[in-house]
Structure formats: C-alpha cells, structure tokens
C-alpha cells in the first residue's frame, strides 16, 4: 500500500512535469548551477567540481552567487583544459586536425590535414590563451616559438632560416638553437615547453605574419600552379574577414558554349587559342561569376608569391580587397595596397570588418550562432573587444557575464524581424550585384520607401523562391548560384513573410501579401537550438566527451577510440570542410556511451561513490562482490530512490536541474529500473549510469 501511494505521488509529479518543453529543463533549472556547468563545459570541456556546485547552491545572496561564478570563470581561464579547448576551437576555425589533449594520434582525415599538431602554430595558439596575448598576434606575430622536440623544432627551423637577412645573425641564431636542441634529453621532449625561434634583431620580419606564415598553415593550404596561393587567401578571408569562399563548379552559359564549341571544332577560336591553363586564368579575370570571388582572392594571393613552401624573405606586394559591412547594413568596397605578408597582417587587423568578424567567432563559441547577432551588436562588441586590448580571455569573460550569454534571446517565431533575414538576403545580393534593376535586399528595410514597390518586391521574393512549393522550374537560388537555401532558411523566410514581414522595430507591413497557402514547420526554430557545435545549447562532443568520461570513471578506457570513424560519431568536424558529418548525436554515439560505461564502471569509480552511503547493513562492505549478491528488487523504495539520486547528482552535477525536472527525472529512472528487479545491484547501477549518460539532460549544456 505504501508503495502504491509512493508511486501515485510520483505519477502526479510526472503528469505535471514530464512534458515540459525541452528547453525549460535547462533554462529554468537551478539557474546558477546550470550556468556554472555550462561555463565550465564551454571553457574547459569538463564538468564543474560537484563541491563547487554544492557551495554555489548554498549561497543565497544573488550578488555572492555572481561573485562565486566570477571567481570560477577566473579559475577556469587559468586552467590547462581551457588553453587546450580554445586551441582546439582555433584548430577547427583553421580547419586543421585537432590536437588531442591526451596526445593520441587519430589519423582520421587525409594526409594534408595530418601535419604535426606539435608546431609553432600551436604554440602561437596556446600562448594567446595561457598568456592572454592580443588576438592580433594571429596576424602580426613575428617572433615564433618552437616545440621542445628535436625533430619538430629542427624541421621548422629549417623552414624559417631562409628568412634571415643577415648571414651573421642567421648562423648565430641557427647555431644557438642547434646547441639548445642538442642539449635536450629525451625527458625534456615532453612537448610542453617551447624555445624561441626568431628574435626581432636577428630575423627579417618583413614577410612574417603570425599564424598565416607558419609551416602548419602553409602545409594545410598548399599552393599549386592552378590555385596560385588562392587557397591561402580564401582561408584568410574566411578566418579573419568572415568571407567564406569555397571552390565550386558553377555552370555558366558562356563556359558551356565554349566547351561545346571546342568539342565540335578543335580549332575553336578565340576562347581556346591559349593553353587550357591560360584560358582558365583569363576566364577568372573576366567572367563575372568567377570575378565575384577572384577580384578579392587574387590580389591577396599575390602576397604569397615566392612563398610556396616557406615564407619568402622578400615581400611580394599585393592588395587587400574586401567589402566592409557598415553599421547601417550597407557594404563598402575597400582596396588597400599591401607591401607583403607582414603588412597584409597588420592592415587586416586595422579593419573594422576584422573586428566584427572576430567577435562573431567568440559569439558563436560562447553565446551561440543561433542567437541573432545584429550588425549593431557586432559593432558594439567590437568596441568592447578593442577596449580590452583585443585580449581573448578578457573578452570571453565579458561575454560570459553579459546578458546575451545569461539570457540568450533565441529566435521567436512570432517576432521575426528583418534583421533575422539579413544574412540570407546578403547571399541573394551577392549574385545580383551587377543587375541594375534588382533591389538590394540586404541594405535596409523596407526595400523601398514606396509601399507599393516594397510589396511588389516582397511578392517577387515569394514567387521567385517558390514559397508556395509549386516546384517552379526557375526558383531562386538557381542551380548555378553556388548555394541553396537550407530548410532552416526556407522556414525562416516563410515564417517572416507570413508573420507580416516585420521591420527591425517589429512593425508589420500594412498591405496584404500573397501568403495564402504558404506552410512551414513551426518547430524549425526549436530544432535549430541543439547541435554539436556553436548553438546556445549544444551537445557534448569530441574531446570534451572523452574528458568528461575520463573524469567520471577515472579511467581512460573510453578514450581508446577503436577506429578513426568514431571521430565522426563523436561529433568531430571534418577538417576538409569544417563541418560535422552529423550535427547531433545519433544512436551510434549512444551505443558508444553504453559500451564506454560497461567498460569503465568499477568499484573504483561509479560504485564507490555511494557505497559508504546509507545502505548499511545491506551493502555493508565496499566490495563489488557484495553488489553482485544484492538484487535491485530487494531494496526498498527509499533505498532505490537514494541510489538513483546519488548517481544523478554524481553524473549530472548537483542541482543542475530544476527541482521539478529533477523529480521527474528521478521518477523516470525508477520506472526504467522496474523491469530490472532481478538484476544485481551492480547491474542496476550500470543501467542507471547508461540511462543518465544517454539522456539529453546530461548531453546538452
């Protein structure tokens, strides 16, 4: 009877709480503890210590709670895990293989991405965070350090020695470094220390520019006769100016005609009067489609001339050509001559576009790319970043204490505004810049002061993008555009249009639009909130997963990835295109977790945490054998509940869930274990662990 009553209460609780929307579980929990868990995972990739969560929960004064969190942020920013995590973030941004904090070698991807992670580039990355150095070092540093490993250091030194102008200095520098390397013992080569390679006095610095003249960057973005350093320029545009240009094959009528004519008539003139290569180079210079990227890429690529394998000591002049996004949303073409790579690096860091781009990276990493970031906000953040001397740790701390982080404003279906569509419209404009009559969609809204013209443009958008899903043949973007609207973008456009095409002040247009029959999935906004990477709430992934499991079980068993493809399952990004093959966990990841628990759990880990707890006399001794002897069904409800709560706290973190969600969660675990009455206590605990560790509550932060 007591048991029935007990379960009855739980059922009542369940009815009230179990169907709460997913987000509320995370957003309305014990907010400070939930926030600390999130901050710890974002900064270090590890859970906060449970003692910290307990201490935080005991503080009642809100200011003291904030102070406690600030102390912890400072502590995390000093940790090795933070440096490793941020280095990994930069490696993802640069699309190189991630350095494994454990030093394991996963040969997951193609050779060209496999350069040693033990390099001057990595030291540059880690110094940024361990020493809170200015972010501009990525483009301006001329004084590299080499890893404390004879082979690696020697190889890199060979690459850099050509930069020395003065022979005397070169020989002296080389001899000093060689002596130093010779003095190393095997024990010294733990890769944690570094030696300075280039001193400003001895080396020519005219052609060194931080990360983009490191050996690892050069190897990752090799140049060929055909790409002529454009790969490197494209990477610089993507990383530093947020202008992503990918190699694509776009059909063009003139190209196709040329090829057709060539096939019919070998003696085709004049398009193929030159060699194939010259013809292509010429096309890049003239074809509007090619020119949209190449007029920016080619002048920057010139600065790498003569630097095919290592930076040339003689700078090669070029030009920095890009479009700066102004505060009012308009774009201005900027062309700045540069004298070489070093000058290029400095001139990029002088640009507003660089600043707004860099704060966008930080925003995506810490606030979430699904939280709208307006251009005004970018400018505001850029000013803060600049004011903090562009020091990453200070800016990250600022972001983590900002309202944007604490209360992120996700897209609201009933309050979509023009600003939410601007990125999409910018992509549309990129193809229509040369069409005199085409409206510039990204330059402000309403598109025209004349209301009737505005409504015409909106209706044209509806028809040209086929929002009625009539499968029109020629809808936008066309096949040769080089991009397609994602389902998220399509839903976003439909939702904005059907909710009145509001301007940035939330004012709907007065006239009626042709929206009848436009349907979309209203849940698209929710679904975009949870991914492995860069959403405001995201799934545990890659090395963080391994680290967290290692902490829980004090065992590296889970870290023994049996094959390279598991990296994909665990949410690693593919360095080839910087994307994950899967964006959120699939069942194979859950299977990996289950296997991990089964391999790792032992008396020294999961079981030991509760053994001394109040199970006397049933569990009288700290032995696994004892746990084998007791059946789950033999325990009374209080004991079962205590075991579940204990393990929930252990794995999820103390008071990370709201009281209501916690009760519901524990009840669900109790119910799940109902089918395990005949399981041993040991087996039951294993099941509890698998269940918790495969739950959204654990995996999402």
């Amino acid at each position, binding site marked *: 009877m007591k048991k029935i009553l007990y379960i009855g209460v739980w059922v009542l609780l369940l009815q009230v709480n*179990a*169907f*709460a*929307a*997913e987000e509320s579980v995370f957003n309305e929990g014990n907010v400070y503890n939930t926030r600390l868990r999130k901050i710890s995972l974002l900064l270090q990739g590890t859970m906060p210590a449970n003692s910290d969560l307990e201490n935080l929960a005991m503080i009642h004064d809100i200011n003291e709670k904030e102070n406690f969190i600030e102390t912890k942020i400072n502590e995390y920013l000093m940790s090795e895990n933070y440096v490793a995590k941020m280095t990994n973030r930069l490696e993802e941004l640069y699309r190189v293989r991630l350095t494994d904090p454990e030093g394991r070698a996963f040969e997951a991807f193609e050779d060209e991405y496999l350069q040693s992670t033990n390099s001057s580039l990595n030291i540059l990355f880690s110094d940024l965070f361990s020493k809170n150095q200015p972010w501009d070092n990525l483009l301006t540093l001329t004084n590299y350090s080499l890893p404390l490993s004879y082979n690696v250091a020697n190889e890199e030194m060979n690459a850099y020695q050509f930069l020395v102008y003065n022979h005397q200095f070169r020989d002296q520098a080389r001899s000093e470094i060689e002596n130093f390397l010779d003095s190393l013992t095997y024990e010294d080569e733990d890769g944690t220390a570094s030696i300075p390679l280039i001193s400003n006095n001895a080396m020519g610095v005219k052609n060194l520019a931080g990360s983009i003249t490191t050996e690892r960057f050069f190897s990752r973005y090799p140049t060929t006769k*055909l790409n002529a350093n454009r790969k490197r320029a494209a990477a610089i545009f993507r990383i530093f100016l947020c202008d992503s240009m*990918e*190699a*694509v*094959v*776009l*059909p063009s009528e003139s190209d*196709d005609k040329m*090829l*057709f004519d*060539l*096939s*019919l008539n*070998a*003696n085709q*003139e004049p398009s*193929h*009067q*030159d060699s*194939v290569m010259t013809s*292509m180079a010429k096309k890049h210079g003239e074809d509007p489609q090619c020119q949209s990227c190449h007029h920016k890429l080619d002048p920057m690529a010139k600065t790498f001339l003569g630097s095919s394998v290592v930076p040339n000591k003689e700078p090669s002049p070029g030009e920095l050509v890009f479009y700066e996004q102004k505060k009012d949303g308009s774009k201005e073409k900027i062309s700045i001559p540069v004298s070489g790579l070093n000058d290029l690096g400095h001139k990029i860091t002088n640009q507003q576009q660089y600043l707004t781009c860099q704060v966008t990276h930080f925003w995506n990493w810490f606030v979430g790319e699904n939280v709208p970031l307006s251009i005004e906000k970018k400018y505001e953040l850029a000013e803060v970043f600049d004011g903090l001397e562009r020091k990453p740790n200070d800016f990250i701390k600022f972001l983590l204490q900002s309202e944007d982080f604490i209360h992120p404003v996700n897209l609201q279906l009933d309050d979509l505004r023009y600003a939410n569509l601007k990125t999409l419209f910018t992509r549309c404009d990129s193809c229509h810049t040369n069409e005199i009559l085409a409206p510039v969609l990204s330059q402000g809204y309403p598109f025209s002061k004349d209301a009737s013209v505005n409504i015409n443009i909106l209706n044209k958008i509806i028809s040209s993008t086929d929002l009625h899903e009539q*499968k029109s043949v020629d809808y936008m973007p066309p*096949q040769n555009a080089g*991009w*397609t609207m*994602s389902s998220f973008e399509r839903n976003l456009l439909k939702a904005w249009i059907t909710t009145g095409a509001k301007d940035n002040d939330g004012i709907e247009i007065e006239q009626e639009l042709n929206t009848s029959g436009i349907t979309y999935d209203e*849940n698209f906004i929710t*679904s975009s909130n*949870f991914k492995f990477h860069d959403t405001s709430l995201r799934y545990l992934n890659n090395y963080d997963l391994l680290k967290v499991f290692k902490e829980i079980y004090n065992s590296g068993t889970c870290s023994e990835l*049996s*094959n390279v*493809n*598991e990296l*994909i*399952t665990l949410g690693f990004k593919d360095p*080839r*295109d910087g994307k994950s*093959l899967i964006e*959120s*966990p*699939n*069942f*194979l*990841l*859950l*299977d990996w977790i*289950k296997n991990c628990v089964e391999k790792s759990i032992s008396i020294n880990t999961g079981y030991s945490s509760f053994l001394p707890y109040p199970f006397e006399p049933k569990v009288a001794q700290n032995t696994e054998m004892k746990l084998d002897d007791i059946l789950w069904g033999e325990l009374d409800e209080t004991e079962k509940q205590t075991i579940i709560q204990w393990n929930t706290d252990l794995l999820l973190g103390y008071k990370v869930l709201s009281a209501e969600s916690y009760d519901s969660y524990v009840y*669900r*675990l109790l*119910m*799940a274990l109902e089918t395990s009455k005949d399981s041993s206590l040991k087996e039951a605990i294993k099941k509890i662990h698998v*269940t918790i560790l495969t*739950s*959204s509550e654990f*995996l999402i932060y």
Partner: protein
Amino acid sequence: MKVSRRKFIQGSACASLLYSLPSKANLLNYNPNTNQFVFQILVPDGMDVTLSLDPLTHAKFNTDQADVFIEYRPDQIFGNGKLLLGPACEALRPYLNEIAVVNGIVMRRDTGHEALLSYIASGSGSAALPYIAVESNHILQEPTLGVLIAGSVKMGQRLATLTQIENLKQLGTGNNQVSYLNPFYNNVSNLLSTEIQNLVDFNFRKSELASEIDKVKSLLNSDYEEIPVIIGSFLKGMSKTAVLDISRLENMELELDTHSNHESEHLSSQMAVWNFIAHVFDCFKKIEYNKGSLFDNTTFIVMSEFSRTPFLNGARGKDHNVYTNSVLLAGGRVQGGKSVGESKMLKRSQRPDGIAIHIGKPFDFSLGQSVNTNGENVNLIYPENLAKSFRGLYNQSENFYPQLTGIKEIKGLFKS
C-alpha cells in the same frame, strides 16, 4: 511512414505529437522482393580513363604518342563491340554483359580533387546536393543504419543516418540488450528518444547482424572486411545504400594522382582498383538473394573526380583532365554490355595552342547517342545529367533530386 530523427526533434516541442511516434518495429518491416540496393564506390585522385573505361587507339583519331600517351597494344583492348575496356579493367571481363559505362562526362573546370569528386558523386558542383547513394537512401526509406560509409559524403539538404562501416567491423555478438532504456524515454519529451529507439533496435539486432556478417565473411573469404559488413547489413535489411571511398581500404595502396612518372605506375594502381571492383562483384554474385544474387539486386556506381590529360608532361606525368570522365555502372537493373556517350581526341596539330585535348563528345539526349552536330537536344554530358538519370531506378520519381528540374537525363541506362 518513417519519422526521421530530425523530424521527431522538430515535433518534440509539441506535446500532442508525443504519442504519434511510429513503432520502430513497423519501420523495420520490409518486403525483400521490393528491395534494391545502391553501392557507390569512389576512387579519388583521378583515373586515366584511357587505360580502363574509355580506351583509345592511335588509329581511331590518327594520333601519336605526343597527342595521347598509350601504354598498351590495341589487342589488349577487349569488349563486345558496344562496350570496350582497357587493360586496367581486365578483371571485369567476366562482367562485360552486366556493366555499362558512361563516357565523355565533362567536369567543366578544375576546382580541385575534393570539389570535383563531390560534383561527380552528387551532380552538384557546389555541394548543394547529396551523393547519389544518400539521395537513394531517402527514396528507399532509410533503414536503421541509413547509409553505410567509409570516407566522407555530402548530404545536401537530406537528413540521413550515416553509419561508419568501420564501426560495424567491430561488432560483437555478446548480450547487448538495452531495452531497459525504453521506459525512461517512453512518452516523455526527450530530444534523444528516437535515437534511443534506434539504439534499442540496433542492439537488439546487433548479434543477429554480427552473426550474419560472420556468416558472409566465412563464405566469401575476402581480404576486405568492408565487403561482408556491407553485404551483411544489406541482407539484414538494416541498410540499403553504401558509399565506399576506396582509398580508405586498409589493404589498398594507390598512386593515381600521377603528375609525374605516370607510365606503368598509374596502370598498376588502376588495375588494383578494378581488381577490387571485380572482387566486389564476385562477392555479391556469390550471395543468393531474392531468387537471384545480391549482385542482381544492387546497383553499383564506380566513379573518380576526373580523368587525366592525354599526353605526358615534362615530368612524364599526366595532369588533371576535366574535359572528359567516365563512370561505371553495374548490377541487375543496369542495361549492361554497352557504353553510352563518347569522348574524342583533339590532336595537337589541330589545336592553335598545340596542346592535345581529350574531351567529351556532344550527346543527343533524345536519341541517346553521341553526335558530331549541334541540335535541339544536343549538349555535352555533365555530372548533373548522370545524377538525374538515376531516376530510372525509381520509376522516374520526382522526389529523386527534385532540384534537378530541367536537367536532361541519359536514357537507357537502367532496365525499367
């Protein structure tokens, strides 16, 4: 109707949908008689098609070695009149009547290995469309394991489960029951509910799959573990599509990107490729399925990102040639024993720049043959034409690459 994980997530915020999840058991039911499989094999680095799928002789175009370097004798070319293959493909001789080749596919321009491999594998030069096998997986109503992959694939806008073949090589046969997870997730809004259902199902059938793979393994005695994994998963209905990047095979050392020292080095690598393909065919032939063999119920697609320039460069190598490419199709649904599309040689003496070109020939899409004239339905064959042609496998379903509206298909590649 199958509800994808993403669709479920989209629905998860709506409590009214929580009870409408279909039973996984229903999703797994399939009728073997209607099952068709797609196996897309990618050979990165660019194969010299003159050695294999599109052999040339100097007599045909009145060329010499400076126009096109040919390292085999004309009598080493074999075929049946409608389909000719070069010496690298010797291992395919027994399959002449069950394979078809599409020649003269023009890749437009050289944007590098990765972009062009994606182009030929999907029909989109901007990675906007999924690989043919991924699109097929959608049409075939994705089974539990979705698309089996070794290497990476482009997904376009399709949401598909991807399962690494490597993972399945590690399958154990032990007790893997995780059905105890179900009560935790049943009737509760949770983002991972569908994945848990998949996990429960996968674990429930894992032993079954592992023993099937073991059975196939012992039957085939193959050096390549990937083959029994794919066959086993197909046989158990847990997947219907696979994408295999041949460079991921443990036992395959290839040197195909021969910008230097092309002679014999490229040929031996390409022979290894085609020997492997023939071995795959052998294996699928050995497996009985649906009153025939598994080969009969599978469509194989073998493709590389481009061909190689016809003549030897200064380093005695052959560079990237985007002007022509060839693709091999095989399997029971393929109209075998023929090639579709042609290429031609433009000799250096014909060219103002003195550089010989090996290029695809215009193709009349209404007649289904290459022509030497212009015309309403005449154009070069591009990867998008090939991709759309796979609609022939699916009763011309408009749900297969719906984005390729207006693109002409190469007719006659598949039996109806």
